[in-house]
């Protein structure tokens, strides 16, 4: 079924067992982003040690796609430098814009390639990108505070 390409088991697993959920008190910057079409909300905070992302914590409410995506993002980007993170974010954004034509690059995106199927559902791309847009924003704000 076409739906299975959207709801990969890894996605549902992250939705049911979200990683790095619960905001930290000790952060460099924090942002809140909302998907205006559905009301999904994500608050994300980052702790930078030099250029290294030493912690990413989040809280939010929303659909399986938006919540699993931010959960996976925090797994993927924690411990990376801002420069490394920017490459991963670019790769994920390109995948979401691919309209189902790209399988995604597992050497960069690791588990997050499971979101390739989301790009076939234009109505859900924004859900998958919500956390990633929040990350871009919080990274810029954190750099400004260095």
């Amino acid at each position, binding site marked *: 079924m076409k739906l299975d390409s959207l*709801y990969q088991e890894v996605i*549902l*697993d992250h939705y049911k067992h979200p990683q790095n959920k619960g905001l930290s008190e000790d952060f460099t910057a924090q942002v809140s982003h909302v998907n205006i079409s*559905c009301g999904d*909300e994500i608050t994300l905070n980052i702790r930078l040690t030099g250029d290294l992302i030493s912690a990413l914590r989040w809280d939010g409410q*929303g659909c*399986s*796609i938006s919540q699993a995506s931010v959960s996976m993002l925090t797994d993927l980007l924690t411990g990376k430098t801002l420069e490394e993170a920017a490459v991963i974010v670019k790769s994920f954004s390109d995948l979401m814009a691919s309209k189902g034509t790209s399988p995604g690059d597992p050497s960069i995106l690791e588990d997050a390639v499971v979101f390739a199927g989301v790009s076939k*559902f234009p109505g*859900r791309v924004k859900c998958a990108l919500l956390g990633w847009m929040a990350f871009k924003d919080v990274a810029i704000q954190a750099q400004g505070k260095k």
Partner: protein
Amino acid sequence: MSLTALAMREDFPIFLRTVAEGKKLVYLDNGATSQKPLCVIESESNFYKLHNAAVHRGAHQLAQEATEAYESARAIVADFLTAPGGADEIIFTKSATESLNLLAYTMGNAPSGNRFALSVGDRIVVSEMEHHANLIPWQQLCARTGAELVWFGLTPEGRLDLSSIDDLISTRTKIVAITHQSNVLGTINPLDAIVDRAHKVGAVVVLDACQSVPHMAIDVTALDVDFLVFSGHKALGPTGIGILWGRMHLLDELPPFLFGGSMIENVTMTSATWAAVPAKFEAGVPNMAQAVGLGTALQYLSGIGMDNVHHHEIALTSYLLNELSRVPDIRIVGPTNTQSRGGTISFTIKDIHPHDVGQYLDSQGVVVRTGHHCAWPLARSLKAPASTRASLYIYNDEKDCDALVDAILGAQKYFGRL
């Protein structure tokens, strides 16, 4: 006897197609927009094919035919609403949203001395169940004028809490803007007490009837409200056409909204005077084909009979509420019986986000709305930041309700698989 559709599905070309890889289209998103019967599509298209010209301008035959068609549509709307002042009280806008903004902006522009002029100390009353279109224009009007926005809260069942009506609607109140039927809860609001109280203190009542005009007989004289708005596209009509009805003496007192052609009486380089209502509020060449299409849509509805429409939807709502009550882990957001409620049923399913419910339903050909339904304050107050909404209409039947319930059970199985 099972409940069959009130309108022939054959009248609606869209039901000839399938969705989700060959599945029957089960269209339950009527609260967002209705489907269009062929007669409406043809009426709109025939205007362009046969009569297209700018209305109220030109002495040629086409302009006369276009004007005749456009003004006939206005008369049909007036009859449909039982407007006491007839067609002149009907103003065509591009949407119900524009109709409400027209009121808020013109009231905001009313000069001091005008009955609508607002200032610090005045009050506008809304409710917590308003669609954003009947909240934000008033909220921002208050911000511009210093007037105070107050609102009716809700009971746990999703009905208006009228217990503080005399405090809320006070001698300071100038405007009460309220929805007739909630686009989320399906609640039909009791208007008698609100209208009585508003008129007693000299306030006007603005009724957002987007979710009621398509679904029940509306008589503005009997309702005794002062203004009413609805959108054409939810009532089988085209998009791009909305209605504002108002009592003639009140429309007379309001200043114009948009300035330009057609809305003037006389113009010099330094001044202008205004045409009579309704032209005063219809600057520019209007959405003519859409107005004509709406006229055809309302005639189609009248042919079925609005009391029949209402009874059909109530019977179907009763059936669907009963079927949904058998779904495990469901919460109906709004009244769970058919007393003073229409065919809009919102719900949440434990552990499955509405967006995911909607996606699964879509894979089964069942079309619903998910999210906050443009009523964010209501969603927050109900502690249901998002919900799934099924909204019924004349072409729906028991089978559609069964398809919805089956698909919800399917979604629970699908997302429960891990």
